[in-house]
């Protein structure tokens, strides 16, 4: 992984709120603040991990960054171009640069379409290759992700979960993007197959100089694969740090609790776990002040009224917490 500190993608105060409708007239009653003010620079060649509990807005952040969701607020600057207000025609060349790998590749594959044809689709839209050249390219892609040429003719249901994820990866890299959002790409896979796919993602990154935004709730996988990690809570950023700092010196109380809650595959050494009380609050009615204060073991009174500022506590290590 070569990270050269050149910003590929700048995300500025991005918000995505979904309307909640209700009542007889289906009026907008409220908003789910799925992503609520994210500011980040993503560097060329890095893998930036995004972690946090279910519903904290990881997938929505990924989709918004890729232009798959409209922006509620904020700016997206890709390679120096502010693409926030681009029309879909203007966005086309950028879409070619950005791809997504999903948790469940099966849902995104047409069951009646042969794998070879599915892989060709993006090539038809985004390249001028002849049909012979496209076939060549698809066979090369299959080979690159560890599938076989004869898989070209097969249909999605004939593949195992791990193989389908390889197809999803082949499709994402088919038009040589520079940036890929990986949304829980290995979460649905068995451990042994998961390890194979992680290796594949790493090899491809090295070979093609890819930049990944890697969304996952598996902190083990994230430690293994990422250069930096963003921890989200209820749509907001609570901690951002280079991977070794985050794991060796987690500073936000939520990050601490998250790391201490992971069951470790080692016996004997019993660690004290930080127990969080209660459940995740609803993102349509987030707590005032610090979003974490309702579950935070060290919260003081001002935590429930004042929003903690985002500040750098060590080089590249940011948190939002009054008490740390």
């Amino acid at each position: 992984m070569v990270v050269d500190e050149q910003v590929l993608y700048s995300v500025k105060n991005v918000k995505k709120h979904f309307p909640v409708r209700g009542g007889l007239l289906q009026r907008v009653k409220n908003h789910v603040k799925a992503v609520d003010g994210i500011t980040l620079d993503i560097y060329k060649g890095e893998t930036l991990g995004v972690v946090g509990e279910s519903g904290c807005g990881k997938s929505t952040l990924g989709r918004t960054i890729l232009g798959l969701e409209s922006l509620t607020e904020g700016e997206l600057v890709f390679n120096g171009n502010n693409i926030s207000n681009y029309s879909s025609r203007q966005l086309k060349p950028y879409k070619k640069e950005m791809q997504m790998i999903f948790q469940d590749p099966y849902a995104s594959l047409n069951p009646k379409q042969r794998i070879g044809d599915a892989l060709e689709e993006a090539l038809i839209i985004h390249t001028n290759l002849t049909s012979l050249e496209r076939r060549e390219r698809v066979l090369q892609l299959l080979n690159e992700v560890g599938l076989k040429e004869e898989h070209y003719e097969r249909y999605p249901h004939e593949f195992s979960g791990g193989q389908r994820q390889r197809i999803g990866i082949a499709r994402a890299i088919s038009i040589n993007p520079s940036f890929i959002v990986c949304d829980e790409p290995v979460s649905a896979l068995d451990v042994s197959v998961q390890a194979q796919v992680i290796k594949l993602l790493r090899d491809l990154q090295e070979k093609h100089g890819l930049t990944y935004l890697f969304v996952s709730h598996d902190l083990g996988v994230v430690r293994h694969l990422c250069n930096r990690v963003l921890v989200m809570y209820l749509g907001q950023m609570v901690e951002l740090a280079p991977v070794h700092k985050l794991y060796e010196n987690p500073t936000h109380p939520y990050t601490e609790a998250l790391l201490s809650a992971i069951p470790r595959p080692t016996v004997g050494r019993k660690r004290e776990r930080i127990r969080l009380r209660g459940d995740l609050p609803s993102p349509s009615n987030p707590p005032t002040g610090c979003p974490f204060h309702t579950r935070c073991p060290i919260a003081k009174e001002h935590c429930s009224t004042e929003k903690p500022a985002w500040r750098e506590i060590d080089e590249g290590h940011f948190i939002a917490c009054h008490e740390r």
Partner: protein
Amino acid sequence: MKETVLEVKDLVTTFKSADGPLPAVRGASFSVKKGETLCIVGESGCGKSITALSIMGLLPSNGMIADGSIYFNQRNLAEMSPKQMQKVRGNDVSMIFQEPMTALNPVFTIGFQIREPLMIHLKLSKKQAHMRGIELLRMVGIPSPVERMNQFPHELSGGMRQRVMIAIALSCNPSLLIADEPTTALDVTIQAQIIDLLNDLKEQLDMSMIMITHDMGVVAEIADRVIVMYAGEIIEEGRVEEIFENPQHPYTKGLLASVPNVDDPEFDLKPIAGSMPMLNEQISGCRFHPRCPYAFDKCMEKSPKTFHVTDKQSVRCWLQEEGVEQNGGRRASSL
């Protein structure tokens, strides 16, 4: 030594298919003692749930126990009528199912669903059942249990629904609780709460537990003993320390090397090549041999015997046989 609660012997469970019966469990033998937690681990499709459902008498209609016995408190469950099994399920053995979101009925209140088994199996009055229900919800750590009794499942978070499932499973004081991936769908902070809860309850109630999971971290937190399944067979068994610190089967070793370690930045991820065979795949010899980095001639010809490493640890792998060179492994005596 504590008494044995459950003794499964040579269990074979098959599914009907156009090509004849396909075995999903191929001669599994294991036991559970009073107050003990046994974890069953292995990859998707290896037969964990089907083993559990065989014990519960809840196999899908195309599945059947083709051979073997399941002794629970000296009675063979494999030979019981559906009616007798229903009684066993209500009173002695209960199960938490793999899909927590679908296991509760969305149209009935929590109260209704927790009172039902208490009234049927313990013959409590509605009022008594209601009181006991509140007590159970409190025991599993649900805040304001009185109000929860009137709520519907969709009004509860995933972690709370899972607690309700546990409360219902515990309602008739089972001596054996089978939990099939009870935390897989939950966030780690909530998962940690549920694991603590199960560990506490087990201690309080001196209950035996079979926990099915593919998360080696969960195993390390909760198991006394572990069985590792591969393609329908138990390939290794041992105390939890033995499985983690001195695994013998190449598959067990591979499984442990496939989980990235959160505490080790230099962790060397070593995937096992290939994937689990389908039920209808014919494999000679050891069923793991096509994926095994150490396989030699004998592995392709003969199904491995069971070798005992210690009094508690046993493994089915030809590398254990006297005279076979094995890198880094420890020699074990043949049975």
